Every structure is written in C-alpha cells, then in structure tokens.
C-alpha cells in the first residue's frame, strides 16, 4: 500500500508534511507518492480531499489539511496495517 501526500504549490505547510511522510515511508518500507491537487484535482476528490496538506494510506485518508507529527502518522498507519 502507498503513502500519498496531497500538496499544492503555494501551501506553506506542505514541505513539512512531505518531509515527515517521506521519512515514515522509508522507515516502514512503503511506496511514496505526491499528488498536486491543482494538477490532479479529480484524483484528490476521489479521495475526498480538497485541502492541503493531506495524507492518505492506501484508500484511507489519515489527515486532512493538517500536519501530523511523525509519531502520529506512524501510529495511524500501523493501526491500519494490523
């Protein structure tokens, strides 16, 4: 399953969210992907995401329009992996 970060060009929080998500993906050995919601709005909408930064694991959106801590993100992913 993939870890996806939804981003937007001018979003001030996005770099932060991307960094955290990348680290977590590496640690847990997950595939990592970024989706620019302006370039691919429809994919974002199909995830029910319309704000950035948002993070999804597989089909499940874990955080919408907020940056979790590394620990929070890990915790949510592990819950779903069980």
């Amino acid at each position, binding site marked *: 399953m993939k870890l996806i970060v939804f981003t937007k060009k001018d979003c001030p929080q996005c770099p932060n969210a991307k960094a955290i998500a990348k680290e977590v993906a590496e640690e847990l050995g997950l595939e990592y992907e970024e989706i620019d919601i302006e370039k691919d*709005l*429809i994919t974002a*909408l*199909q995830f*029910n*995401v*319309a*704000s950035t930064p*948002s993070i999804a694991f597989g089909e499940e*959106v874990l955080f*919408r*329009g907020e940056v979790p801590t590394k620990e929070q993100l890990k915790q949510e992913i592990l819950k779903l992996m069980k």
Partner: protein
Amino acid sequence: MPETFDTEYDHNKEFLTVRTSRNMLESFDRRKIVQSLIKETGISKEIAEEIALEVEETIKKLKLKFISAPLIREIVNVKLLERRLEDARRDYTRLGLPVYDATQIIEKGVRENANLQHNPETIHKLVADWVMKEYALLKALPLHLADAHMRGEIHIHDLEYFVTRPYCFQHDLRWFLKNGLKVDGTGENTAVAGPAKNAEVAILHAAKALAAAQTNFAGGQGLDFFNVWLAPYMAGKTYKEIKQLAQMFIYELSQMYVARGGQVVFSDIDIEYGVPKICQDLPAVLPGGVVKDSITYGDFEEEAIMFARALTEVYLEGDYVGKPFFFPKPNYKLRRECFKKEGFDEFMILVHKVVAKYGSPYFLNLLAGYLPDNVFAQCCRLVLSPDNTDWEDFKNGCMRTGSLQVVTINLPRIAYESNGNDEKLFELLEERMKLAREVIEIKRDIILKRMKQGSLPFLTQDVNGEPYYRVDKVVRSIGFVGLNEMLKAHTGEELHESKDAWRFGLEVIKRMMDIAMEWSEETGQRWVITQTPAESASHRLALLDLKEFNGKAVVQGDVKTGAVYYTNSSHVRVSADVPLFERLRIEGAFHPLCNGGMMAHVWIGESSPNPELLWELTKKIATKTLIGYWAYTKDMTFCRDCKNLSGGIKKSCPNCGSSNVEWYSRVTGYYQRVSGWNDGKRKELFDRKRVNLG
C-alpha cells in the same frame, strides 16, 4: 359601414356588437383593428387595413350576434400568420388560460409546486403564474431560448417570476437592527419602524424583514449568523425569556401564510454555537440601533449559546399538535473551533434529538477544508462563498448576497445526442451552458430595468449610497440534473457502479466549473455551478426525454405510468444498493466543484434513531467526506383524525387506525406534504434506499 349580420335581430342590423376585453359592449369597428395593429406591432398602415378588411369578411361569414374582442384578436393573429408576420403575431396575441384550465385551478389547484395549498390566494397566484410564465416564454425570451426550455434541453426555473423578481437572497440582520424597517422599501405605503429597542421588536423585525423581502424575490430568504446578531438583545434575560423569543420567531415564520400568493416565507436561519472568531471583534449593533466600538459581539458569547439552545429546543418541541416546524429551516454550522468550546457536544446531541424526532436540521460543514470561514447557506441548497468585497460588507454590517436566477442543464439529453462520443458530449455541454448564460444575461437586464422602473422597491432601498440589491454582486447559477443517467447512457455504468464512471462524472462537472470560472473572469460577474433543487425539473425533463428519445432514454421510476424522474444533480441513484458512507464519499467528491451550492441527503429508515449515534455519524461525515451541506430526512405520517405523528410512510395511523393521513418528507431541499408532490417525485420517495444506524 358593416352590413347586417343577422336578420332576426333588427337592433343589430347595422352594428355587430363586440364584447371587449374591458367588459363593455362596443360596436364593431374595423378601424379599431387597424389602430391597435399599428400601435402594438408596428406594421404598416396598408397591411393593417388589408388585414382588418379580411377579418371583417371572416366575421361576417360567421353570422354572429356577439363576438368577443379576444376572438377578433385570434382571427387577426391567423391573418398575421398567413402573412408570415410571426413577430407581429407574438406582440399582438393574448396571454391567458383556457376556461377548462381556469376551472381546474379554481376547483382542484395544481400539484406542480409542492408548497401550494389549495386556497383563494394560491388560486389567484396560479392564474397569474400562467400569464407571467407565458409572457416570459413569449416576450421576454427569444424564440431559441424559449424553445430550448420547452424542448427540455435546459430548464429555466421560476419562469412565473422571470420578468418580475430575482431568485433568492441572504440578508444581514444587523442592517435592519441598525436602521429600522420599511417593509415596502419606501415607507410610502406602510408604516416605518425605527431601530428595535428591545428583543421582542427585534425578533418581529427579523421575521417581517424576510416576509417583506419575499414579496420581491422568487426563492429563499435567509438570515446568516441569526443567533449571533440577536445575542446583544438577549443580554440580561433569563433562559425562559429567551426561549419565549425563540418560539415567537419560529411561529412567526411558520405561520405568516401570506407570501407569494398564500405560502409561508421560504426562510432559513444559520445557527452558530456561540460567537465565531470572525465575528468576535466586530462592533455590536445594540438595542436602539446603537453601535459602540467598545462593545463587540465577542461580549455576547453566552447569550448567543443560550439563544442557539433555545431555538433548538423549540424545534425539538414542534408545534401545538406536535408537528415539526418546516420553516425557517435551521442550518447548523460545524466549525473546527466549536469542538474546543465547552458544552458543544451536549448542544449537538440536543440538535440530533431534533434530527431523530423530525429531521429538521441542516448541517454546513466548514471542516471539509474548501469552504471559507463564512458561507451562506440558504434556499434549497445554496452555499455562496464570499469574496473580498463581501468581507468589506461583512465588516460594515451589511453583507448580502444571493442568486439572480437558476437555469438547469439536462445532462442525460446531452448523452443521448452525443452517441458515446466524448468530444461531442463536452461540446454540447458547453453549448447548453451558453444557452443558460444567455437566459441569465437577459434576466440581469430585466431586473435592472425593473429596479429603474421602481417595481422592486425593497431592492432599491439605499445602503450607503448603493442599492440594497446589487445585480452584479449576486451569483448566476447554472445547475444540472441527471448526471447518473448521463453516465449510464454514455458509459454504460451508473455513478456508483465503477470508479471510472465516477471519474468521468467528476470530469463533466469540473468542466462546467471551469467554464463558469472563465466566464466570471471574462465578465467580472459571478458564474457558479449549483446542484439544482429539481423538484419539478427532474420529472419534466425525464418525461420529455422519454418521448423524444424513446428506447434510448435512461430514466428512473415507472415508464408505464409516466411517474418518471431523473436523479437529482450528481447524486447516486436513490434506490442504489450502496452503503451510506460509500454514497457520501461519491457524492461528496462533487461538492467542492459546485461552488454555487450543494446538498446531500441521508434518508433515515428508523422511526426513532439514536441521537448519540446520529451525532457520531455527523462527525464522521464532517471529518471524512467532502459533503459541504446535508440533512437527515425522516419520513413522517401525520394522522388528521387523532393528530398522531409517527415515523415512516404509513398507509394508516398506528395510533387509531385511520387512513386519513398525510405524509411528510423532504421533496428536495425542504420538507413538504407528500400530497403536493408530482408523480415523479412521489415515485422517488418510494424508491429511496433508507439507512438504519442500528
């Protein structure tokens, strides 16, 4: 001089007597035809005289004692058409309805508008509606646009009001509290009230402002921040007193049965839990219309919460016989900041008790991340996002907006016409949108003209040098119906049947939004896409398509009886066997694209759902989906004999067994008696897949 027409009647030897449209008997005089033709149609004197002569000949042959002026007019019209003078015919013809239809309206009323009771006021309204609708199609709109509506390519809403009123509006109560109230807009025909000095009067002014405005608008009248702007008036009052005021307001708006020809005001109020951050530092309008910089709305947090609770309790109690209040519709705003406030959870459980009992509340989801801090919800499903100049108005105490006109695009028709060709489909989509745009541009000119002519006096009131109604600041709404059936016809799959169909649906609506945004840039006006509240359009368009595209048309309902309908906007087919959350995720994806308004429905199957579970569901919808506006609909059966109200659609009263019952449900964006629904909508009611929370 005319010759004798009927030898038996000597007194008519020389003159044929005409019953004129002014209810007087006049002698037939050909010259009157000539004069009226020249005056009304502008054709030449020669042709007018030629026609008048021919008409006289025709009438002679009929050997009548009396002839009515309307009949002469129709004969003239035939002569005009024989000469291919169609424009002149359009100007010369009469508007009105056949005797048969007038009798039907007088004796039975019509079912087309779910809000109309059969009473003397509505009989007058329906007769007038007929003429005004014909006038709009015949005179106000050019032939190609009128035809596009008649053929069912587009649906022009509220045609009966097309030439007289804009659609809907959201008011700022602070302006009336500060300046008082002129219900006729000028103060010349009615008494003028100064700023309310106490809470009772403030409440009455709020109710009367909406009723007054309704006389100048076709659709919904809303008050945003209702409990916030009134909070200063509640200062020093006990909870019991505040509840009495809440009750007074709700009764006023659900009992003034006087608007738009014998209906209640189509009203709604937005209720906030306390004073939201964006209002806290604004100087408050205090009793007497006084404003002091030192006193802001933030000082009335407690009063705002008490008033919100009081309003909610009144909704929970229902009316004297235990029926729900359908108007004003209460919109509850869900803000992230609310969750941190003490008592919010408890308050929302109270709100969900109302949901469980009556289904009345509506929810505005500011947690979805695409609606700005302040949205306007009004009417059936309008959520109007403000821009910068709106914020200025907001700070200055008179924020106001609305929709000028809604025109709906028949999406399935486009699919039938494009034969599976994507390119053709998008081409036709834009073409239809352009038709809608033309209609709305005509509407703009009409409303500006009416304002100049003084026939919209409530709208031309002065607000700091500007008219109360600013035509170029309100939105132009392009709606759509039947995305689901469009997808079925075009891709072979319904909206919920595959991710690809869903995606293609999103592409269609996104294209609409992109076009609307382009137009906004081009014109400096606000073009928006809206999920049409299509209580009559979904039935009318499905019927037309069934006739026109037989074998190809994809409609819901019963083809044999004609009880057919299209699925509303981008909703999932109501009868589709899809888990609730899946449905909401599919539908929610469309909401950010519908910047002119959206709404989702949750049809409740249980007769007494658990309020705590409902609140949990609300939180889940708010945080996990993009649904921006929704309501839970609980169907109800009301017994006319024993006045018992029970959940669900039942053939007889569970209390006394009587079959003298009335059903209530949401037709689209509001509750109504089911007996007023059209056949398509009734069928839809029975098709709806309802959920049980368990």
